């Protein structure tokens, strides 16, 4: 049992929350980084290999482009549809292979990244599709290569939508990171379970909820600010209809 009147309680709480927050930020940060590194190209390839897309015919083969598109579509749909708790358990052998263990914050990064990639890839797809085809045409008329079109037109022109998509993604990674914590340990999620649930400490529970809420709010505020900063359309990007803002 935990006793709030115990003189060691508050320093203990502070210590536990500090460690938990640190672990959560570590898990979420690394997972987010990996998600962007893999999900962004994946989303671009998903759009590009569609019929009439920029990479419709990689290596000159429409057939190959079509296969790539189908396979990636399938993987993304699969990743999006398997419930996280099942995915996490199913990934245990893989996680063990990559990290050496399936317990702890580092191990948690694996399922978090894998669940977030398809999620973010869809966001990227939506954002890229929003870019006016006329802009691609203008770049083509200037003699741009496909990679120049990606780097100079598609990504910069969808940047504010991408940032909002990223903010939605990070919210869901935080959400899932708490779930990972309950199973594999680490982060604010495990604080909530170990202290709030198993030792009946309402104070711990409330503190975790507030902390997670604050983290999400800060990140979303940051994203909205950045999105506005990169949107030069004369209206805030946050008002654009096709951006999903909740999970």
């Amino acid at each position, binding site marked *: 049992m935990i006793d709030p009147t115990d003189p060691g309680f508050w320093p203990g709480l502070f210590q536990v929350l500090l460690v938990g927050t640190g672990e959560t930020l570590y898990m979420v940060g690394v997972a987010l980084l990996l998600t962007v590194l893999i999900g962004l190209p994946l989303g671009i390839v998903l759009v590009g290999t569609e019929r009439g897309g920029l990479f419709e015919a990689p290596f000159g083969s429409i057939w190959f482009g079509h296969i790539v598109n189908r396979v990636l579509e399938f993987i993304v749909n699969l990743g999006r549809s398997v419930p996280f708790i099942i995915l996490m358990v199913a990934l245990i052998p893989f996680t063990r292979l990559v990290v050496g263990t399936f317990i702890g914050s580092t191990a948690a990064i694996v399922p978090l990244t894998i669940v977030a990639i398809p999620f973010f890839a869809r966001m990227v797809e939506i954002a890229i599709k929003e870019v006016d085809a006329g802009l691609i045409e203008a770049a083509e*008329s200037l003699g741009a290569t496909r990679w120049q079109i990606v780097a100079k037109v598609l990504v910069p*022109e969808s940047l504010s939508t991408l940032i909002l998509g990223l903010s939605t993604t990070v919210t869901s990674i935080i959400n899932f990171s708490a779930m990972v914590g309950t199973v594999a340990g680490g982060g604010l999620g495990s604080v909530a379970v170990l202290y709030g649930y198993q030792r009946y400490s309402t104070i711990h529970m409330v503190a975790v909820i507030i902390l997670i809420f604050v983290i999400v709010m800060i990140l979303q505020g940051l994203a909205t600010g950045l999105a506005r900063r990169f949107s*030069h359309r004369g209206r805030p990007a946050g008002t654009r209809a096709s951006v999903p803002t909740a999970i």
Partner: protein
Amino acid sequence: MISVKHVSKTFGSGASATTALHDVSLEVARGEIFGVIGQSGAGKSTLIRAINLLERPSAGTVTVDGDELTQLSPDRLRLARRKIGMVFQHFNLLAGRTAQGNVELGLEIIGVGGADRRRRSLEILDLVGLADKAGAYPAELSGGQKQRVGIARALAGNPKILLSDEATSALDPETTRSILDLVKTINVQLGLTVLLITHEMDVVKRVCDSAAMLENGRILEQGSIVSLISTPGSRLAHELFPLGAVPPHAGNTVIEITFSGGSADRPVIAQLARNYGLDVSILGAAVETIGGKQAGRTRLELPGSPVANAAPINDLRGQGLLVEIVGAAAQVEEARA
């Protein structure tokens, strides 16, 4: 400079196939401004996009400045496109870049670096009259200013050809005139060959040296404006000088005389009245300055049948004027009855 030969383009296949271009051939000479006019859906955009192969023709060849583009590999085609600037009806500017940034895009693509790029982009913005808006984002610019940025971007890589797909169609008449004047200036100052498409006759009148008329994917006529004006039955010439419907003229002869170049200032009507004692009535007239020269069309009514007026009509034709007898067939019928 641009040679389009037997180009056809079909979209889709089977029952849903639409053929946007039917065996289109076109010759654009170096240094001229060539206008393609046609109504919406005529295939104008498809045609201009076929010239830099944004749209690959289903058949036929496109040759630009000696390169047969339809034969080139993707890499060579990209290089060839650098010689061909293009401006668009809806400007197609990157919203996330300033005016200068948009112009620099063209230079980045061809690998012009750092200081050179900044210098050149400012130079071109100055040429199009936007030096003071270099730092403005497209959302902060008017339509006309956006199109100036579009033109500057197209010119950044020093192309030899400028393609314009309805560049002024989203602009008000006054802005249209200023943009057309800019196009003319560029044509003269930089020696650029310009191919523009439009659905507005005024655009052709204002800047074009040559024109083609496109209808349902086919070229109906093409040539220099001067030669089109003196071609009997030219639709383009008729649309350049609209005289309206022909009024009823039972028993009389209605003729249309097209003047161009030197013949515009001759006192033709006075001569007719004097030499043949004819009671000439003027039914309509349209005069335009085309390519810096006066040209026009006058519709006259002469008393009596075309046969009776053969002598004065032949006299006019003898002076090198284009004379068309309006509704002549109907009158011949009448004469027979």
